[in-house]
């Protein structure tokens, strides 16, 4: 019954937004994080910030999604509230999609704030708005799914944070946020292309600053979609395995 599954996703999403994401401390963190990020780079080197903005938007999306997503799922596992969802008449995939959407919407808010700051203060422009929106949505979905994958594979909240950092910090340095991937040694480039943030940064760069290479943009969008499917399938399998 697809309708029942969709209804399940909707209610999990609403519940997560209300119970966890849209709490005052999280909202203030969501605004402060991009501001602090911008300020840090502005103080360090005020020139060339427009070129850095695609990376900053991608980084805001990465941290905005993974940080909260991993905590929410691990916390619910810890207090037994996730079992409340597992005993409901919906599939495990539905539960995870609902969870991933909650994290993605929170990430969208943070990446949205970062985009506004980039447009208002860093002289960035959105050259291809449709592509920008498509990349933004896929980026928050992919990284929220990554957060979910991390969360279902650990037991404690601190483990989720630690494991997330194993992915997040290498991605920030390898995926073209600060330095173009092409300027890195070939072995590093190979690793970079195994990480989703590389495709996000590249696509954001094209959508914000141009020029647009349709083939590359399509490659990025397809790669991000594949990552999303892979992370969701793996997270569902891990959740199922945890019930064995």
């Amino acid at each position, binding site marked *: 019954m697809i309708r029942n599954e969709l209804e*399940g996703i909707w209610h999990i999403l*609403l519940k997560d937004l209300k119970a*966890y994401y849209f709490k005052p401390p999280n909202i203030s963190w969501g605004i402060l994080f991009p501001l602090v990020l911008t300020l840090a780079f502005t103080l360090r080197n005020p020139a060339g910030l427009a070129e850095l903005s695609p990376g900053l938007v991608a980084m805001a999306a990465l941290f905005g999604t993974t940080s909260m997503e991993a905590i929410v799922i691990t916390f619910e596992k810890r207090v037994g509230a996730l079992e409340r969802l597992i*005993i409901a008449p919906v*599939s495990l995939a539905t539960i995870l999609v609902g969870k991933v959407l909650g994290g993605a919407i929170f990430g969208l808010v943070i990446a949205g704030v970062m985009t506004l700051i980039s447009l208002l203060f860093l002289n960035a422009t959105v050259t291809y708005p449709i592509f920008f929106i498509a990349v933004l949505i896929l980026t928050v979905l992919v990284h929220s799914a990554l957060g979910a994958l991390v969360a279902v594979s650990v037991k404690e909240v601190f483990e989720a944070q630690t494991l997330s950092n194993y992915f997040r910090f290498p991605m920030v340095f390898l995926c073209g946020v600060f330095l173009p991937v092409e300027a890195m040694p070939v072995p590093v480039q190979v690793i970079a292309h195994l990480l989703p943030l590389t495709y996000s940064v590249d696509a954001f760069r094209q959508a914000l600053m141009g020029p647009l290479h349709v083939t590359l943009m399509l490659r990025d969008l397809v790669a991000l979609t594949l990552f999303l499917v892979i992370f969701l399938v793996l997270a569902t399998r891990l959740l199922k395995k945890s*019930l*064995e």
Partner: protein
Amino acid sequence: MNNIITTQNLTKYYGSLLAVDHISMNIEEGEIFGFLGPNGAGKTTTIRMLVGLTTPNEGTATIKGYDIQKDIVKVKSCVGVVPETSNLYNELTVWENLRFMSGMYHVPRNERDHRITSLLKTFGLADRARAKFGGLSKGLKRRATIAAALIHRPDILFLDEPTSGLDVMSARSLRQFLKDLRETGVTVFLTTHYIEEADLLCDRIAIIVKGQIIAMDTPNNLKANVHGTSIIEVVFTSPVKTLNLEELQAYGSIEVKDNTLRIQVTDVLKSLKAVTRFADDHGLKVVYMNTVKPSLEDAFVKLTGVESEVMLMEKERRGGGA
């Protein structure tokens, strides 16, 4: 009566530990069925397998004809589950929690508010509807969790240690509610370590020890099946522990506590004479003497070898409940 739950050799291992050992049982529609056993006996694991929280390693089970492994979503839509820990969302109000559950269980939109209002009234939570779940007392949390499990009007209600941690009045009203629920045709499957509760509430009881069902029958039949159909209870003026009880042991198994002697016997008359003779021989004065039928607790102790007090103390040490 139709069987609403059927299990065949249902088995669960946790690593090398055999938690549930080839359990086979049939539970009839509309009965209150109790799972009674000490800690770690496999009670909760059995419920977890039946409601899809853990996968069996061997065996099969059907609920309302649906296979718990192949049709788990259908199984989930016809059962309500009250876990041992009241696990609604602390951050949401009682109303929001029930509203969320009504959505997850696909209750028709136009019925949701009415059902929530009615359940809140039934469980005495109407004035706490807007209170955060996390701020409620243990007893109120328990009530809200049971209300949430009933929002979709399930055919079967699973309750894991439903009265654990509740005060006497709350436990009593919950037991009455479960009896009333049975009258509406709902099948109730509960686990408990309170022998008296199982005796008062259940139509049938399964006693489970080390993952195996060692007895399954009505409370009266379980009591009747205890070897030795009567118990002689004698209270003396002074303690009897230090005395030589060998001569009485020939009449049945003996239990001594301070001034009280209990003997489980087959021949009441012969045994009464022996007890009187024993009192005379030792210069003891009898304050009170009575013959009683074995209680469910006697049956439980006989079958499991576990004293009920030990079971309760273990449970309390582990911190059960809401």
